[in-house]
């Protein structure tokens, strides 16, 4: 059995070399498709993770009046911790000093704005999160209107969870994810058709060979296996080249930009690159084997 596999493998290599033009066509097809698919997968997973991160990061801030008494503060704290849906341990008290320190960090020590302000105009606040990001609004409502909280003004709700902004980001991310998924499906179908067609051309050019093999008494599998191995070699080669190309383009075009725009709060990260490569290689393997195996069926009816 071992020698048979060696035979099939050698057969595949031989015909790959013998049909260089179609081999190249198949490899390039896989390469292009996998490259686009790779970009799609990386971007898609990036957007998906990024939007998830935004959802998870939605923080509810309840701003306190400077005049709030310790008793009022205790009541507010109790209300927050006892509200169902509030993530345990997410509650944080940000004092006025903490707030100004944070702003200084964000703007830089020498900020003109800070130099112009007298004293500390920032209120203290409680910060907390909802377990389920979708419950944020409901959780915030439970705290609203408690004595000791700054009264909400138009455009400055209290508690504030960046309602409008977060909603817009989440909506956009959702749309992008859906569009990406749809593109992925269309791309996958196009890839299979394109690769199937290339393989069909290659087999069609050699249908006489297949006919002869059958006449000499080759079983279907005997004819089919070298073709499938051929398809797999083309698929893996194309996928590997696509991975290399992806790595290069990521390094030269995207790496700096993503790091700079997404700095702070840590990169949300997309699909880990090694995983992406493994996925691409397996997709190439599967498409190559399935594509040629299925396409062969028509030509084996001799």
């Amino acid at each position, binding site marked *: 059995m071992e*020698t048979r596999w060696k035979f099939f493998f050698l057969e595949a290599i*031989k015909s790959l070399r013998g*049909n260089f033009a179609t081999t190249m066509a198949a490899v390039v097809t896989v390469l292009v498709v996998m490259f686009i698919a790779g970009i799609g997968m990386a971007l898609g997973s990036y957007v998906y993770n990024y939007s998830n991160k935004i959802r998870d990061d939605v923080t509810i801030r309840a701003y306190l009046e400077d005049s709030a008494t310790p008793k009022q503060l205790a009541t507010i704290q109790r209300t927050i911790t006892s509200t169902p849906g509030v993530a345990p341990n997410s509650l944080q008290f940000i004092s006025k000093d903490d707030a100004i320190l944070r702003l200084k960090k964000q703007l830089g020590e020498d900020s003109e704005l800070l130099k112009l302000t007298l004293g500390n105009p920032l209120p203290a606040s409680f910060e907390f999160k909802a377990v389920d990001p979708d419950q944020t609004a409901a959780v915030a409502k439970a705290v609203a209107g408690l004595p000791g909280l700054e009264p909400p003004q138009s455009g400055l709700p209290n508690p504030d969870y960046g309602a409008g902004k977060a909603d817009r980001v989440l909506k956009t991310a959702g749309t992008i994810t859906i569009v990406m998924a749809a593109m992925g499906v269309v791309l996958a179908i196009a890839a299979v058709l394109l690769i199937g067609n290339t393989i069909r051309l290659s087999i069609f050019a050699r249908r006489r060979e297949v006919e*002869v093999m*059958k006449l000499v*008494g*080759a*079983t279907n599998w*005997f004819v089919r296996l070298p073709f499938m191995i051929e398809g797999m070699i083309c698929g893996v080669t194309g996928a590997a080249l696509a991975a290399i190309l992806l790595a290069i383009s990521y390094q030269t075009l995207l790496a700096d930009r993503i790091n700079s725009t997404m700095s702070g709060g840590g990169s949300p990260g997309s699909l880990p690159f090694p995983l992406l490569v493994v996925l691409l290689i397996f997709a190439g393997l599967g498409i190559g084997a399935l594509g040629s195996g299925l396409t062969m069926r028509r030509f084996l009816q001799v």
Partner: protein
Amino acid sequence: MAPSAAPAPSVAPVPAAQPDPPMTRGEAQLERESEERRRRRAEALSELAGETNEIRRPFAPSNEAMILLENVTKVYPGAVVGLDDVTLQIDKGEWVFLVGPSGSGKSTFIKLLLKEIDATSGNLQVGGRSLRTLKRSQVPKLRRNIGCVFQDFKLLPTRSVYENVAYALEVQGQRRELIERKVPEIIGLVGLADKIDKLPHELSGGQQQRVSIARAFVNHPPLLICDEPTGNLDPETSIGIMQLLYRINRAGTTILMATHDREMVDKMRRRVIALEAGRLARDDRRGGYADETGL
């Protein structure tokens, strides 16, 4: 496998085809040359005929059917009749010419034997096995027991002479040592030892046909089907091919040959089966290409 177990036939090696004499100037010389060719061809033909005459007495059909057709009819889609109620038997070891005009059913007959197509009705047996009940998965086994030689050679274009012949053994999963021993032997037998690493397109038509005969015969199949094996070859080359096939037949292989080569059939005087419009028109033990009565 039955065929590989059979003893190697005592087929003498055929010398490699002579290269054509160089082109010459002068009409007289040309004429002399064509005269010479005609003479050589006539000699070779009568030699072949002589051989066949000589073999006629020892030739004894075993009466065991190699091919058996009982009321076999093949109707293609669109009511095109390929074979029409044909009944005949071809015994083991026989040499049979299959003649008839184009469209008379010769190809249908051959395709039925290889189970490329199935008969519409009737009983068809090859080597005692009914093809009607033969499972699809058993078809490769059937074909390994039938050597095929075609007008267009049907060689694998990207493979060398050696690889083409070896392929017929590889499909059976034969061991490498056996392949490496058998293939050069059979290639020597057909007189192409010096061409063993050439690709088909580097060979002449006659040489390619020898390769395809080597491939067909390397299994020592009990039946060899030839579909106009000399149809694309010049008369001189044809004779070489026929001699080769004749030796194979003498070693016990049944030969069924579809052909249009009137001269060859007339000279060899073997069994002739003539088809016309799918019907069995004639079955002569020692026939000529055309009916004796001058049809």
